[in-house]
């Protein structure tokens, strides 16, 4: 069984988690065009390499961020969503 580290609950079987897709900026619901909505809802960059994704530890309903390599499926890091802005400001 593959093990994933939940920032709240610690290392757990991957079967306790659900992936909620890549992290990307939300559109402005008041001003977004139809094309922008379509892009937001249906477009996936599908990058080969390390991406940031939303994941949930299902038993505790805890959402967090994971960095995963889409080629090797290796999970590089997991952290609280509250750390996302701090990390993005650094980079």
């Amino acid at each position, binding site marked *: *069984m593959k093990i994933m580290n939940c920032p*709240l*609950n610690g290392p*757990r*079987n991957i*079967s*306790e988690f659900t992936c909620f897709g890549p992290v990307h900026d939300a559109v402005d619901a008041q001003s977004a065009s139809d094309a922008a909505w379509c892009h937001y809802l249906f477009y996936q960059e599908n990058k080969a390499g390390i991406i940031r994704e939303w994941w949930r*530890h*299902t*038993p*505790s*309903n*805890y959402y967090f961020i994971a960095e995963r390599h889409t080629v090797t499926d290796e999970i590089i890091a997991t952290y609280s969503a509250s750390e996302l802005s701090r990390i993005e400001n650094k980079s």
Partner: protein
Amino acid sequence: MAVLAAGRRTPLGDLYAEHPDGVPSSIDATLVRTTVVPERSGEGPIEVLDLTRYARFGIKGKGASDWLRSKAIPLPEPVNTLAPVASRKLDLVRLGAEDYLVLPQSLGEPASLAALRSEWESDGRERKGFNSWREEVWAWFHIHGANVADFLAKTCPVDLNADRLPLRSVVQTRVAQMDCILVRTDRTNDHGFDLFFDVASANFMMSSLKELGAA
């Protein structure tokens, strides 16, 4: 309250119907006890108590922590721990930054829990969390026995041995292929865990534990 209690049907629901007030008179007289692993040479039994019909209260969401602090209730630190609140005869389980489960320290004495709930319901402030209806949506079992950690290892991926998981620890994981919260309470003075899980799956949980015990 009586309507809700009578309407609950957990694995031993027919027995619940005998106590329509929802408040059993004592732990020994009315508590439903099921042996899932019988006593064997040198090893005590593993038993499951169905506590579903006892009172409990959950609040979660923004403002829940501040509301509890405003009532001088110390919050469990860190998340995934239980802290007794001696002044109110309650146990407070912290499941998230703003997610709490409140249990009575004495199962047959729900007055202190009802008082806290009444305080919360009558409080008019805008942000005080929301009622998560733990008494309605979660079944509540207690499983205990000297070898309970080894027994649960058949179906739970987390190491529950006493030396790894101290008293008042909380584990949010899976048991019997279902999401389940385990709280080590040792409430019978034996090594034991309170299990909280989807009440609609209570029959399945009990059947699974019995099958594991028979295997």
